[in-house]
């Protein structure tokens, strides 16, 4: 049934395209993320994606499907000197599915899009509605865009009906029985996410494009990892991770794309500042150089730097053991710890287009591959400090006709 969804969507799109002259694009992409551990098995995520889009006049239809096949091991209890346990339960031996469909209407100066996606895995359900609009003005030298996304998510959790205090909250042991009415020890917690993203792009010169924008995200609901526990205080209590119900996240970004025609190349730079109400502050910078070699070969190199502070309630495992929690929240999430990431990568693409005068059915064929290497720098005693690097290997192809 799961495989039929994209197949039916693809056939519908192709049938729609067949009603007249339409542009159709099909693309597939496979990403393999590997994060090895010095003490255990680490994590591997295999992430295939496929997408079909058809445009007929001002109307466009899109459909896509993707998977996250996750396997590995992680620390179930955040405590000093802990090593990962082999996990056979839900968290790291799971498959996440996501199917999406959307439609767009585009004129020479205005574009409207709307979409829906549904994601599901053993312990998580997610409905996402998204709409976006953009308009060009000043002879299409500027584009103002606004996107809004609303998530209606449900997270499986242990009911913890007998807990007398926050320290009695027990983590979820397994995802078996999640979202089934008969599971009395389990419950589904709600999480709603609203995301607003305005942006402004400026075609500054025939060789230079600039963009600025921001993101506001409001989260309301259960945001903890239900499987994770944290050791608190010298008496060794190990309650389930507990995060605040609400979070507001703000980001500002700027982007510069500069063409370098003598080298048939482009430099792409971007920077982002981030802050949220859990007191995580971050700065990220990206730089990429893309260049053609010959008529069909495109190659590029990339670097990225990211640095962030920790959440206000984050403590190292030793601090949690000695001093206890900071207020009524505690976490063993590396993403909420002070962290510095470096990324270096390279990509190569083969692009084939028929000559403009030919009557070929093929519009464009692209085959591409890339490799990125990610290096983490965390404080001693921070979560997952046994994992200091990751690699991302990806390959894909797209066909337009």
């Amino acid at each position, binding site marked *: 049934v799961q495989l039929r969804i994209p197949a039916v969507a693809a056939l519908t799109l192709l049938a729609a395209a067949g009603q007249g002259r339409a542009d159709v694009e099909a*693309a597939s*992409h496979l*990403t393999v993320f590997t994060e090895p551990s010095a003490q255990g098995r680490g994590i591997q995520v295999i992430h295939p*994606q496929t*997408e079909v889009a058809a445009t007929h006049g001002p109307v466009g239809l899109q459909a896509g499907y993707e998977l996250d096949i996750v396997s590995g091991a992680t620390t179930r209890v955040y405590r000093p000197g802990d090593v990962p346990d082999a996990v056979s339960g839900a968290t790291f031996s799971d498959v996440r599915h996501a199917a999406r469909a959307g439609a767009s209407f585009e004129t020479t100066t205005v574009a409207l*899009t709307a979409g829906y996606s549904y994601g599901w895995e053993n312990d998580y359900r997610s409905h996402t509605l998204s709409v*976006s609009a*953009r308009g060009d*003005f*000043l*002879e*299409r*030298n500027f*584009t*103002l*865009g606004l*996107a809004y996304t609303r998530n209606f998510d449900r997270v499986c959790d242990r009911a913890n009906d007998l807990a007398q205090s926050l320290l009695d909250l027990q983590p979820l042991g397994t995802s078996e029985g999640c979202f089934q009415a008969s599971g009395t020890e389990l419950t589904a917690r709600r999480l709603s996410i609203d*995301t607003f993203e*305005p942006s*402004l*792009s400026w*075609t*500054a*010169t*025939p*060789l230079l*494009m600039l*963009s*600025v*924008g*921001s*993101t506001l995200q409001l989260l309301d609901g259960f945001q903890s990892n239900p499987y994770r526990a944290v050791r608190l205080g010298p008496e060794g209590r190990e309650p389930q991770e507990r995060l605040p119900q609400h979070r*507001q*996240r*703000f980001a*500002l*970004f700027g*982007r510069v794309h500069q*063409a370098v025609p003598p080298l048939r190349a*482009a430099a792409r730079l971007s920077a*982002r500042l981030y802050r*949220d*109400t859990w007191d*995580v502050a*971050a700065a*990220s910078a990206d730089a990429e150089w*893309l260049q*053609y070699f010959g008529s069909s070969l495109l190659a*590029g190199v990339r670097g990225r730097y*990211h640095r*962030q502070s920790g*959440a206000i309630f984050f403590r190292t495992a030793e601090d949690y053991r000695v001093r206890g929690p900071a207020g009524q929240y505690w976490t063993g999430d590396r993403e*909420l*710890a002070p962290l510095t*990431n470096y990324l270096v990568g390279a990509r190569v693409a083969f692009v084939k287009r028929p000559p403009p005068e030919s009557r070929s059915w093929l519009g464009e064929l692209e085959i591409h591959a890339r490799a*990125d290497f*990610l290096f*983490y720098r965390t404080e001693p005693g921070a979560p997952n400090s046994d994992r200091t690097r*990751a690699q991302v290997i*990806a390959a894909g192809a797209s066909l337009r006709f």
Partner: protein
Amino acid sequence: MKIRSVRAWLVVVCLTAGAGCARWRPPLVRPHQRVHLADRIMRVDSDRLGRAADQHVLTTREGAFGGNGTAGGGCGCN
């Protein structure tokens, strides 16, 4: 804290929108001058799946989120 943060964000949104609506008229780039801007290496919306996978990886490895912009890049190349 929350109200102040929302206000700050609204100011940024108004400034972003206001920048485009201001009476200042920059030198305009004409359609025939956009051959380089139309190339895939300059376009923001090229390699959608690859960018989505990239963001998927980074968002789950970092505490920060967003700042990726909306769809479309304002090339106006057609």
